[in-house]
Each structure stands twice: as C-alpha cells, then as structure tokens.
C-alpha cells in the first residue's frame, strides 16, 4: 500500500509538468489549429528565465574588508551582491534564496512577449499551410531557440536550487498513519504539484468565467461566426498564444530545482508532451490535464522494481505503448471531441 502511494506521488510531479506543457500545446491547437513543435523550447526558455534571474540577483561587486590583507599584502576583498546594498543583508540573502519563486513574476511578461512575437512574427503566416509545414517550421524554430540558449548559457546543466525552506523531504507516511520513513517525499515536488494545480485551475477559470474566455471558447467552436459578430478573434487568439507560452514557461521555471536546466530539456519534454496531447485528445483541455497526470503516474508505476522484474524495460516504453493503443483504437483521444482530427 505504501509503495503504491509513493508511486502515485512520484508520478504527480512529472505528470504536472506533462500536464502543463500539454495544456499549452492543446490550447494553441484548439484555438489556432497550429501544431507547435517549438512548445518544448518555450518550456526551456522559462527554465532559463529562472537561471537568468538568479544570476542577476547574485550580481555583486567587490568590497574591501577593513584591516585585512591577503598574502600579497593587498587589501582583502569580498563579493557583496547589489541586492544587499539595496535591501540590507538579511532581506537580500532571502531574496537570493527565493530566486526561483521570484522568477515567476519575472518570467510571465517575458514569456507572454516571446509567445506574442512568435505568433505574430512567424506562426501567423502558417495558418493556411498544411500541418506538415507547421511542424517543420516550428521544429526549425525549436532548433534555433535551443542553439541561442546554448550559445549564451553553455551546454552544461545549470543547478538552480529551491529556497532553503523547501530543500528537505517530508515524511508523508507518518502523516497518513503509516510507519515513519516509508513514504518520503521532497517538499519541492509537493510545491510543484500544488503550483501546477493552481495554474491549471486558473486557466480553466479564466476560460470559463470571464467574458474574454467565453469569446475564446466560442472562437474555438466556430471561428467564423465569432468573426462575423464583429469580434476581432485573431487578436484574442494571439493573446491566448502568449498565455500558452506563459504556462509552458512557468512550468519550466518551477521545474528548475527538480532537474537542472540544460539547453535540450525542451526537446526531451516535447516528444512526451505531444504524446500526452494525442492521448488526451487534440484540442481538449481537460483531456490534456487528465492524460498528463495519468501518463506521469503510469510511468512511475512502470518503473517499480516489481513491475520491471515481470516485464523488463516497460518503464521506458509504457507511455509510447499507451499512445499507440489509444491512437489505433480511439484516435480522437480520451476526451477529444468527435470529429476533430479523427482521420
């Protein structure tokens, strides 16, 4: 029993990442009808927003330590970050410590900007072209974005720690009545799951309860009619693209403490999140979320020792197997609308 709960918990954080990326992907597909292979790159850019902010915050200048000299006789110096000068030592130190959560505020405008520029500058011109062309051009864009990041940040993973308050693990088993130390779960993964739940909830609430969201949903159902009613649906869809980019970026920001970001993390997640979208149903938002968590949990169950002993290698292929079975038996996906992309 405790092993099962542990696997479900383990599946949640990966599932959250899948769900967030897939949510953005399917949002773009549902609104604009574009298959965006550069979505993984947006996730990666988000992660590097966190890296950038934590580097910016630790920018420092040298200050001489009075009364001390180094072994050459020069006055000894130490590095003092600029934030210390502005906010004082204790507040400054905790700002640096909390760089990753602070990056959320930093990343939202950047990601929306990146998304809007991408849509207006490039993807706008591909609405009328076949899906294969969209895949190809966004695949090229993904390569370009990834290489730019590699040029500025290098090829190695950059460790970006979580705030000290969240670094430990917590004994989940003891809370729900198992023996202590049976279910140990890092705090940050719990934070990630809660964060993902909030973001997903916010996106759904935005689409469900605001006028803007209502128009967007109407546009997803019948774009032409909404346009005929005198609503500039293109502009709203552009904003939705920016929003989808922001969701992917935030998923990346919060993922940095779990896995040190490197330039190809986007490509690594891209394939899987496409599979997630297809399993959930192209253009279906609840489907993407459901499939994201489902596949994340399935993957972590498949990597249990007992399962691997029975079917070796299953942990590597389970997601793809599920996708193949789904595509062949129910091509519109778990929750896809009837008739959408069913051929």
């Amino acid at each position, binding site marked *: 029993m405790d092993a099962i709960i542990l696997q479900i918990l383990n599946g949640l954080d990966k599932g959250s990442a899948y769900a967030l990326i897939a949510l953005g992907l399917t949002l773009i597909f549902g609104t604009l009808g574009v298959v965006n292979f550069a979505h993984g790159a947006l996730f990666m850019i988000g992660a590097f927003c966190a890296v950038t902010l934590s580097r910016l915050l630790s920018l420092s200048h040298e200050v001489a330590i009075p009364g001390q000299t180094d072994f050459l006789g020069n006055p000894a110096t130490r590095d003092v970050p600029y934030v210390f000068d502005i906010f004082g030592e204790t507040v400054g130190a905790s700002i640096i410590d909390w760089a990753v959560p602070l990056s959320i505020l930093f990343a939202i405008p950047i990601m929306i900007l990146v998304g809007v520029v991408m849509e207006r500058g490039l993807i706008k011109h591909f609405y009328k072209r076949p899906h294969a062309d969209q895949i190809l051009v966004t695949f090229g864009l993904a390569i370009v974005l990834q290489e730019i990041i590699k040029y500025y940040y290098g090829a190695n993973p950059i460790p970006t720690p979580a705030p000290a308050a969240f670094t430990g693990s917590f004994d989940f088993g003891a809370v729900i009545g198992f023996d202590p130390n049976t279910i140990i779960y890092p705090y940050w993964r719990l934070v990630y799951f809660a964060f993902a739940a909030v973001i997903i909830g916010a996106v759904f609430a935005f689409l469900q309860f605001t006028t803007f969201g209502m128009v967007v949903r109407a546009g997803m159902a019948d774009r032409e009619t909404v346009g005929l009613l005198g609503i500039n649906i293109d502009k709203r869809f552009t904003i939705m693209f920016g929003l989808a980019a922001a969701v992917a970026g935030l998923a990346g920001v919060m993922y940095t403490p779990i896995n040190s970001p490197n330039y190809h993390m986007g490509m690594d997640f891209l394939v899987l999140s496409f599979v997630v979208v297809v399993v959930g149903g192209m253009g279906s938002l609840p489907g993407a979320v459901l499939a994201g968590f489902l596949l994340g949990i399935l993957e972590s169950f498949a990597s249990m020792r007992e399962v691997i002993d029975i079917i070796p290698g299953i942990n590597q*292929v389970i997601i793809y197997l599920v996708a193949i079975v789904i595509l062949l038996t129910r091509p519109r996906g778990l929750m896809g609308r009837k008739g959408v992309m069913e051929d």
Partner: protein
Amino acid sequence: MFGLDKKDASLLLIVAALVAFAPFLLNPFPEGSAMAQFNAGYPDLMQRFVIFGIFAIGFNILFGLTGYLSFGHAAFLGVGSYAAVWMFKLLSMNVLPAIILAVITSGIFALVIGYVSLRRSGIYFSILTLAFAQMSFALAYSVLTPITGGETGLQLALDDPRIFGSATTAEGNIPVPGLFGLEMRDSSELVLGNWVFTFNVGYYFAAIVMLLSFYLAIRIFRSPFGMMLRAVKSNQQRLNYTGLNPRPYTLAAFVISGMYAGLAGGLMASMDPLAGAERMFWTASGEVVLMTILGGVGTLIGPVLGAGMIKYMENIISKINSDILHGWFAFLPDGLEDLVVTMIYPFIGKGWHLTLGIVFMLVVIFLPGGLVEGGQRVAKLFGRKKTDEPKSAKTEPAE
C-alpha cells in the same frame, strides 16, 4: 537508356560523373593552403555524403511522393546497422551478406511499424512513427543490451565466431570489413603538385550502391506505382472514391523507404563496424527530414543535395574557430575586425546547428521546394528557355 527517358538518363549520368570524380571535385584547394580546411575530399566525409544521400533518397520516396511525414525513420537505419554488425560477428567480414541482411531486417521492421502507423494519417502518423522510433531507441538502450550492446554500442570482438571467415587476422587483430579481398578502408593517394587526392575503396563501393539506389528511385518516380503514390498525396479521398485502396501503396512506399534506410545503416556499419542506439534517436530522424526539405522534397536530386549540404556543414563549418575567423578578417581595422568576428562567431564552429536551423526555417518559409526550387528560380532569372521541364535544372553539387 536503362529504360529511362533522355532527361532522366542525363541526370543519372551527371550524378554518376559527379560521384565518380568527387575525390577531385571536393578537393579544390591545394594541401597546406589556408583554404585547405574547406576540402571535403577525405574518405570518411565522402562516405557519409553518399550514405546519407541513400537515406534521404529513401525518405523522399515516402515523404516526397505520398506526403506522409515520418519522424521515426532513423529507427530503420539503426536496425540496419545492428543487423550488419551481427553478420560481421557471426558470418564473415564480407560486406555483401551484411548489407543484404540489413536491408531485409529493416524491411521487415518497416512492414510491422508501417502496418500499424499507416492506419492514421497527418500529424497522427508522424507521432506514431515518432513513438515507435523512441520505443526502439529506449529498448535498444536498456533491455535489449544483449543484442544491441546497450550504451557502449555493438562492437566486434576477437572471440566472435565468424563461421565463414577467420575470427582474427594473422597478426591477431580483428579483421576489417571487405568485399572479396578488397578492404573497405583501403585508400590510394594521387599527388599532383600541391594537391593530394584520396581514392577510397569504401567510398567507391558506397557510391556504386548509391547510384544503383538512385537509379531505382528514378524508376519508382516514373512508374505507375509512383504515380499512384502521388495520387495519395494530392487527394486520398478521391482515390478512395474511384475504388482504389491507397493502403497497400503507402505501405509499399513505407517499406521501400525503410529498406533504403536499412541499406544506409548497413553501409554505415560496413565502413566502420559499430552500431549504437544513438543512431535511432528522434533527432537523427529529424536530421533526415531536414536534409530532404533543404534539398527539395519530391524532387529526384534534392535529397542528395540536402544530405551533402548538411554533412558538409556538420564536418567543415563546425571546425572553424575564432582564430580562423580573426585570420580571415585581419585586413579590417582592429575594432571592426573584433565586431565582425563577434557577430559571425555564434553561427560557426559549435554553433553550426544555429545556422542550420535558420537556413532550414528560411527554406520552409520562402522556398518550400528547397534548394532545387531555388536553383530553378535562379535559372529562370537568367535564361528563359528552360521553362518547360525544370527537373534537372540544378546539377552542381551542394558542396
């Protein structure tokens, strides 16, 4: 000639001539000169040109004719390599059985994957092939280690059986792949003044195979079967309404292009007898997509040009470093020199992927027909007489 019309025959002859004289054509700069680093006439790279040419020709039979975009074609290349290396281990170091087995194995593999994947079209087909290829990659990397060698890859060893050949050479080394006594890595050099030209057995063997498969591709393009595949691309529904089932045709195209990939994999293993799982990774599949699109999808010569161009960039542009750049722009004033070098630097050396990505995007956006279409447009600008049939307008190699 050979059942080709005049235009195709001349295209084949031109390609044959280019391939035969490639050791000269790719080595235009004398040894030791500043430009010598742009010489691509060394065996390893020339082999890669033709092998990836075969891979791209095969991919083009599927994507160019039927419009089905497979994102998992590297799996067949990987399977071909593994099959070939196993033949070297078990049978003998002769490349012929190895290549034949590579083609057959990857054909069977393609039949299975194609049968399942072709039930869907469009983006679903792409994702299905991608899923299958990633599965093969993951399995080859982990569970199938006894067959594939896992992370280290499949290598030859001294204690391999090799029933028809000798397990070791007279000196006690692992023998090298060959064709009835001709060793694949044998080269002879021709020195003409400052120029050094290398003629490599492996290259010429691969080149002959490439010409044969190019010829076969022309025949497929011009056959009623090829016409059927084009019909699938232009309007599958109409094909259904006329009472024709497109599935057998697309499946045949898929298997043929999988066999081409297996052939390329087998040749790759014949030139250098190892096989690794990374050849099956999905970015490797992406690479052949890049080659085909860059050269010109649906054209005969395009994929070969694209393959040559990408392999040239990968091997030559990636070697340029900032010192060489400084050398080139030394004639500029100091400040300007540094500025120019800083501006160019991200695009060369290790950043060649960036150049590749940008060129690829530009091609997809502005030149959907690839380099071939670009060549045709240029040709149209200069002479108006060649407007009727532009298939062979561009003939110079990409290098």
